[in-house]
């Protein structure tokens, strides 16, 4: 098994792990972490395609590489926005949960986080 296939299996397992954390963990910050794991797993799959597409004297296809670079930056901005929303929700309500149940006075604000 070569490096690329191994990285591919790692990426697939990361997607599975991230998905599991996203679905099962009730706390929003943990969901965010899991979502980032999922994302990096997908990026790794791109990396495998890039490595297997080595040609013309370069060791990895530049197109997937460029897409992953853009992806990492976009994933970061999305994470930062989500963290800001979460912290604001916590400041407003003193809780960090996605449940809209009572007895929260500002639950309506938070359910969108």
């Amino acid at each position, binding site marked *: 098994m070569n*490096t690329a*296939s*191994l990285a*591919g*299996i*790692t990426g*697939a397992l*990361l*997607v*599975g*792990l*991230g998905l*599991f*954390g996203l*679905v*099962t*963990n*009730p706390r929003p*910050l*943990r969901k965010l*972490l*899991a979502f*980032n*794991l999922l994302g*990096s797993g997908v990026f790794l799959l791109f*990396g495998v395609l*890039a*490595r*297997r*597409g*080595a*040609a*013309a*004297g*370069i*060791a*990895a296809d*530049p*197109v997937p*590489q*460029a*897409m*992953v*670079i*853009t992806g*990492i*930056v*976009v994933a*970061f*901005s999305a*994470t*930062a*926005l989500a*963290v*800001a929303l979460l*912290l*604001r929700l*916590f400041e407003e309500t003193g809780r*960090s*949960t996605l449940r809209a149940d009572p007895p929260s006075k500002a639950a309506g604000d938070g359910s969108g986080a």
Partner: protein
Amino acid sequence: MTVVNALDIGLAALVLALAAWTVAAREAFAAAVGYVAYGLLLSLVWVRLFAVDVALTEAAIGSGVTGVLLIRAAARLRGATPALDEPLAPPLRFLAGVLCAMVAGALAATVLLMPDPAPTLAPQAVGNLPSTGLGNAVTAVLISYRAFDTMLEKVVLVLAVVGVWSLAPDACWGGSPGAPRPARPEAALAFLAQVLPPLGIVVGIHIFWVGADEPGGAFQGGAILAAMWMITMMAGLTEAPPVSSTRLRLVLVSGPAVFLAIGLAGVVIAGGFLAYPSGSAKPLILFIEAFMTLTIAATLPMLVAGPPEQPPQP
């Protein structure tokens, strides 16, 4: 060959173990620390895949800047009451586990069944390099072949800053973000924040500059410059600028604005949106990249700093 295999297998096992810890840890803070370590190792994996440009991005953004963001968030959420957050019932958890395992298995099978070598655009990317004057095909893809994508991605960054800022409480609008400053002055930290930035700025500009021909570029260089600004804020040496600052806003939009302006000029001069006139492609690309570097260096710290938290000073 066997040594390489052992190294790769060990690395993959380590990455997966840290990912599992990030998912399974009881405390959010411990999970965030695990994620930082995970990001570090992931950049090693990218080097093993010979995607050094990606490894640089992952090292700077994926692990460094995201790490600061997540550790701060985890620490501040520590007082949150977990009362309403009961976990899923065990049968549902089991079901979710089975489904996720199936997804992972299907993906792994797909990866193994896909053709090797994969279809590739590398020959075209390298073949057109002379017309851009660049030597690094990844930079060429980012700024030339897929320029539209990269420009919109800069817009996404600015939109994210707008989104974060719009969470400001009414009274604080126009004020400064609660920058990641220290709880108390630390002499050692202040020393680090004075010695590191000069070196870091040199390295950041170096990485941006060599990006034309070698691994590197605007994203990676800009992220390192951003980190240098962040460390001075984290040490309490500088305050975050107020969000109403015109200079800050100009820097934030300069990257996409310059990109768009040159793209529109291309309609007139080179006969297509985002087309570069032949012969002067490389200077134009470097010009755009310089402003993109600046935008990234300003955007990332603003995203980490969060919404304004202090009322504006009169």
